[in-house]
């Protein structure tokens, strides 16, 4: 897990007694994974910001070779314990698209419920346990609970509703087991959904209260301008369907991500980085979705967005991603309620299918943004090759660019304070380094 020599509250700022005044910060905490940030400062100007990822490589793209599509769903889930549905859903949609499988409409609705539940638990975790402590000045949600117990309890309640739905549909909240190519290995009876349906009414109140809480927070003014990328579905807020669109005019089928983007390897990082084919950086995630899919928001979520005039801040200021997550909590809870209210047991929980040699590719919206999978299926129906592109490796360029831009504002502050402000910005992107391979250790090198 790459532990620095010295560690303590807020990430340690260790001053090098030498003349070069190296700023070395131990570990960026409250992110999912292990990485480091290095800032190079020359003559007071930040010339380089590099997010290095030390998360141990696990070679998933090789581990799936020689496996069946259904086995792939179990394996790729293990890339991330926080967003297993994103991996399972992207892979299952890739295979179904490639094999010409159309699932029962009720199965499609249940999957929407499943994905919404993952967003609820992931966003509640990030807003309340990882990010809110920055805004309110605490090192953790546990410390925050001493003064704001009601707030932490609300976050845990919301998270629990998401987990309950995932456990009901998939047996357990982490690495659920029911999603199979063609549908589900088991679907619930409508009566089984009644208890979580009741919990969702309370969750809606909690989600709306989250929006109010977030509206009361202060964040630095920090306006950025770069393309935002998300899926857009004509009929609904996007989870596992829609076309890849951007604020720069992109419009692509969800299986053609690689027509516009590619991954490259950078020295000092175990995660690959993604760029547009002409080298451009872009940003994914809740802020991109709220911006590009505002027209598809549920009326309750659209109202929450409009009431506080968040839209412009969400589009331009990375710190306000916390507001985008709050709006999406309302969206996901409202979507979950709607699915359950209309649910009838599927006539065909799992349709029959046969594999064929194919390029199986698809994009969906993980809690952190667009995730793309591409598998080559051979004539035996086994995987011959795979490419898995998580959101964090795509956001890395934007994170580094923003840090380079923001750092000069805080480098004059006391070191602990500067570290905290930089970490808060990094946490704004909710980087999932387990996904991108995982840990942050912030280091600032100053040169005269």
């Amino acid at each position, binding site marked *: 897990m790459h532990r620095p020599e010295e560690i303590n509250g807020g990430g340690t700022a260790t001053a090098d007694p030498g003349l070069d005044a190296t700023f070395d910060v131990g*570990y960026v905490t409250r992110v999912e994974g292990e990485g480091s940030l290095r800032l190079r400062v020359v003559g007071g100007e930040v010339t380089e910001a590099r997010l290095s990822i030390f998360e*141990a*490589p696990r070679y998933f793209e*090789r*581990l799936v070779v020689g496996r069946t599509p259904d086995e792939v769903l179990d394996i790729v889930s293990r890339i991330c*314990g926080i967003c297993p549905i994103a991996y399972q859903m992207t892979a299952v949609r890739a295979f179904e698209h490639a094999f010409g499988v159309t699932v029962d409409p009720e199965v499609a609705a249940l999957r929407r419920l499943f994905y919404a539940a993952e967003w609820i638990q992931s966003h509640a975790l990030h807003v309340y346990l990882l990010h809110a402590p920055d805004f309110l000045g605490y090192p953790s949600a546990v410390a925050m*609970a001493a003064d704001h117990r009601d707030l932490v309890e609300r976050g845990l309640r919301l998270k629990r509703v998401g987990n309950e739905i995932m456990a009901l549909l998939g047996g357990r909240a982490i690495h659920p087991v*029911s999603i199979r190519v063609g549908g589900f290995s088991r679907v619930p009876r409508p009566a089984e959904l009644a208890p979580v349906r009741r919990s969702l009414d309370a969750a809606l109140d909690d989600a709306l209260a989250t929006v109010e809480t977030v509206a009361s927070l202060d964040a630095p003014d920090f306006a950025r301008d770069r393309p935002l990328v998300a899926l857009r579905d004509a009929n609904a807020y996007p989870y596992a369907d829609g076309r890849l669109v951007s604020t720069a005019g992109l419009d692509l089928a969800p299986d053609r991500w690689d027509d516009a983007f590619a991954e490259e390897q950078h020295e000092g990082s175990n995660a690959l980085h993604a760029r547009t084919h002409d080298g451009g950086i872009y940003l994914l995630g809740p802020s991109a979705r709220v911006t590009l899919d505002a027209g598809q928001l549920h009326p309750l979520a659209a109202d929450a967005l409009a009431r506080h005039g968040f839209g412009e801040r969400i589009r331009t200021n990375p710190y306000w991603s916390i507001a985008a997550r709050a709006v999406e909590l309302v969206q996901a809870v409202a979507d979950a309620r709607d699915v359950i209210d209309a649910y009838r047991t599927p006539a065909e929980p799992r349709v029959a299918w046969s594999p064929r040699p194919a390029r199986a590719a698809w994009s969906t919206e993980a809690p952190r943004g667009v995730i793309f999978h591409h598998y080559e299926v051979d004539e*035996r129906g086994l995987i011959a090759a795979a490419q898995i592109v998580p959101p964090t490796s795509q956001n890395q360029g934007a994170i580094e660019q923003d840090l380079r831009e923001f750092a000069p504002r805080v480098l004059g502050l006391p070191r602990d304070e500067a570290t905290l402000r930089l970490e808060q910005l990094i946490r704004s992107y909710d980087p999932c380094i387990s996904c991108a391979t995982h840990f942050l250790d912030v280091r600032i090198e100053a040169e005269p």
Partner: protein
Amino acid sequence: MAAPIRVGVAKFASCDGCQLTLLDLEDELLPLLDRFEIVEFPEASSVRSAGPYDVLLVEGAISTPDQAREIVELRRQARTLVTIGACATAGGIQALRNWRDHDAMRGAVYTQPEWIDSLATATPVRDHVPVDAELRGCPISPAQLRELLVAAVIGRRPQLPDEAVCMECKRRGNTCVLVAGGTPCLGPVTAAGCGALCPAYGRGCFGCFGPRDGANVAALADWLSAGRPPIEVSRLFAGFTAWAEPFREAAGPHAATIDAPEATVGLGAEEGTDAPA
């Protein structure tokens, strides 16, 4: 009241799902903090401690040179070291690399493999330092984590089940997917703890909790080989606890050939004629 128990959470090669189970205790989380002080949990808190710890929960397999050095230091700092989950207790899914040519895998994922510092193997923590208790599973069971924490407060050994998934499955009232449905299932040889989750959801067990002590894996593998190519049986064991003996032997054929997928084609044809006893 006694001083709170100092708990640390450490992570190696893993998905974070097992440490997330601690936060998934939700309602129980805040009351627990009356008895526990979480002094190291970088995913959840910016307060850090390099030890000592009364209880250290360790997630993940040892898969890089840094990790192999660090677990030794962590062991020195921990009065009780508990491994949590299939990666820390058995090597996890990434232990499939242990059968393969590591350089070839590295080259397949990275264009500049020389920039990647990684061991040729991913191994359980117990291969590196003594371990006081293990919670199995991919992910661990919240109920078992709760039991472990309660036991730590009382100062007794945690009571963890020592039976096969089949026992949980019968108690849950599931129809046997193996006998009645013909679905391959590792329940007879897999340690209990999940509540027979997969059979309850219409699937065969795929061994998340690893082999039960004394399980006759060879007999089940033989039985499953009836009418099924051995490579398919091997793939069943080549999962999240593949490196745990005796799953290791059963997993070998698939695990060893994955880098040459065309080689797997012929493997099924010659064997696999044993009928069930």
